[in-house]
């Protein structure tokens, strides 16, 4: 904000304290949540949870969920839902598996083909929602079952009766593109750090953490790009506007339908990325991949400050929401608690987040 614009400040306006300003950020709740969850585990969990190895341990599932959650968050800000992303992970995993194993294509072809395929399914989803005017909840609920079913049927066709397609690892092992989507990055840096004694090593001198799992890097990069797009580009403004009020937005010249369909395609591509990473990691694909991820992704987005009604939220919030998720899932194994507390915890977090978001929204809009 420039000085000139501040020139004639209204004397009736009190200066806003930093804390109040912070309160208005959508991601505040998720940040506070991360701190609370951290304190909880710092007290109850084994100290090894917050070593480098422990952090990588909970960041990996957080990242896999987070990539989906960022897509889901953008779509929610744009005013729509996608309940089919979990099934989409399985379905694009199947397509990717077939490309690699059955058709023996190199990754340089398989990966773009998988993204194009996922985007096409996303576009179908989006177009049905836009053209029919039905709630995206119902349309994508239908696709949740359709895609899950197609994954099962397709896997059986591709493998001759099995619901698991193996042999991905053998095909991609020596592909030059594989390190971008699987394994750990910065291996040599970590080896060097281990040599110099900065990070912990096994007895044989190998570092306990061989590098940063690539999904974490993807997760961080996608968060940064999504935040930049939301806050600093016209497209970001269109996403907020489309979700806030689509009639008002289109009266003002925002291409609402195009924005929404693109967001459906983006969400599907996020699912495809998770599918590619996890399939290459596991070396096989199966029909249960991504099971219930749609709910977890939406929970992470909501914890991150997205409103269910659209038009408000942030990618950074979804980032922290996913980290909370990862910490809770993995963290409980470091404690004496029964692991099944996880679901209780998740539900409670969701409820608190929604109540909190509602209060914040009223503050922002000045509703009383």
């Amino acid at each position, binding site marked *: 904000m*420039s000085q000139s*614009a501040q020139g*004639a400040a209204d004397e009736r*306006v009190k200066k806003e304290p930093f804390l109040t300003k912070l309160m208005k950020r959508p991601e505040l709740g998720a940040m506070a949540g991360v701190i609370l969850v951290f304190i909880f585990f710092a007290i109850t969990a084994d100290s090894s949870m917050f070593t480098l190895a422990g952090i990588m341990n909970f960041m990996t599932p957080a990242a896999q969920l987070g990539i989906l959650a960022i897509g889901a968050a953008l779509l929610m800000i744009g005013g729509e839902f996608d309940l089919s992303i979990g099934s989409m992970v399985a379905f694009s995993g199947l397509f990717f598996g077939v490309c690699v194993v059955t058709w023996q294509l190199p990754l340089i072809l398989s990966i773009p083909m998988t993204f194009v395929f996922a985007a096409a399914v996303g576009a179908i989803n989006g177009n049905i929602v836009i053209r029919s005017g039905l709630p995206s909840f119902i349309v994508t609920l239908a696709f949740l079952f359709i895609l899950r079913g197609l994954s099962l049927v397709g896997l059986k066709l591709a493998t001759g009766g099995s619901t698991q397609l193996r042999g991905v690892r053998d095909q991609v092992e020596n592909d030059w593109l594989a390190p971008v989507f699987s394994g750990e990055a910065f291996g040599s840096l970590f080896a060097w750090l281990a040599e110099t004694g900065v990070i912990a090593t096994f007895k044989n001198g190998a570092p306990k953490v061989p590098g940063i799992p690539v999904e974490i890097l993807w997760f961080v990069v996608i968060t940064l790009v999504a935040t930049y797009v939301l806050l600093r*580009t016209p497209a970001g403004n*269109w996403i*907020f506007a489309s979700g806030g009020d689509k009639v008002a937005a289109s009266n003002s*010249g925002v291409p609402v339908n195009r924005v929404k369909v693109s967001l459906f395609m983006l969400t599907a591509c996020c699912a495809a990325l998770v599918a590619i990473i996890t399939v290459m990691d596991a070396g096989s694909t199966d029909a249960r991949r991504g099971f219930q991820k749609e709910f977890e992704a939406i929970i992470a987005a909501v914890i991150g400050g997205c*409103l269910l009604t659209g038009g408000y939220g942030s990618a950074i919030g979804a980032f922290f929401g996913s980290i909370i998720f990862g910490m809770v899932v993995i963290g409980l194994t470091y404690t004496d608690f029964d692991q099944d507390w996880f679901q209780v915890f998740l539900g409670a977090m969701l409820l608190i987040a929604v109540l909190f978001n509602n209060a914040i929204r009223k503050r*922002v809009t000045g509703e009383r």
Partner: protein
Amino acid sequence: MTEDTKFHHGDATGDKAPIVQMKDIEKHFGNIIALAGVSFDVRPGECHCLLGDNGAGKSTFIKTMSGVHKPTKGEIFFEGKPLHFDTPRDAMEAGIATVFQDLAMIPLMSVTRNFFMGREPTKGRGLLKRFDVDQANDVCMEEMRKMGINLRGPDQAVGTLSGGERQTVAIARAVYFGAKILILDEPTSALGVRQTSNVLATIDRVRNQGIGVVFISHNVRHALAVGDRFTVLNRGKTLGTATRGEITPEELQDLMAGGQEMAQLEGSLGGTV
């Protein structure tokens, strides 16, 4: 009209060519005749009030003017040339801006984001092309100050503004983006006394910049406070156009209601309507 207002009224008596001229516009929806030959024009720097009761065809008429509906019959001239608008976007680009009753504002978004919604200023090129937030904030604060509204900050959410202020943001936005004609659809219908006078003052400011204002209302007082000319619509037809000073509020009221019934009603209510 009893009180002479503080506003300077444009001397809109035929010396300037109309920006928009609509001749014998008819609009049929199936077997319903919504407009049965309406003629209307707007000159630069005047406020032309379109009055009429509910169902008179005001909304249909301005939607025809702003490109939402295509007329069944009739001609539209824009700056002297015949013109057809296929979409609201065409009309907007030609310089006809409409501030609808629902304002096209999003309460959860900041004033700046609302102000530039759909027309964001950018800087940089290619992949680095981005929303120029600083410039947008400066322009928005400046334009709002010109309209007499001091924002807390450009990031203030529109939801925190009062109805009159929102109306003013919508008008300021239209003016900033080069409107030659500003159509205001019942801008004062949901406002309090104070806010109404603010909006009327805004209309006066806009008119003084040489913009033609079409002010739709069913409130005769509000119309008479700023209007230069008055056209009354009744049952899809124009009942004539009067210039300021030629007509009394009572006469206008009667025209809007279609004559006799209103006179009777007014009698029984003791002249309070």
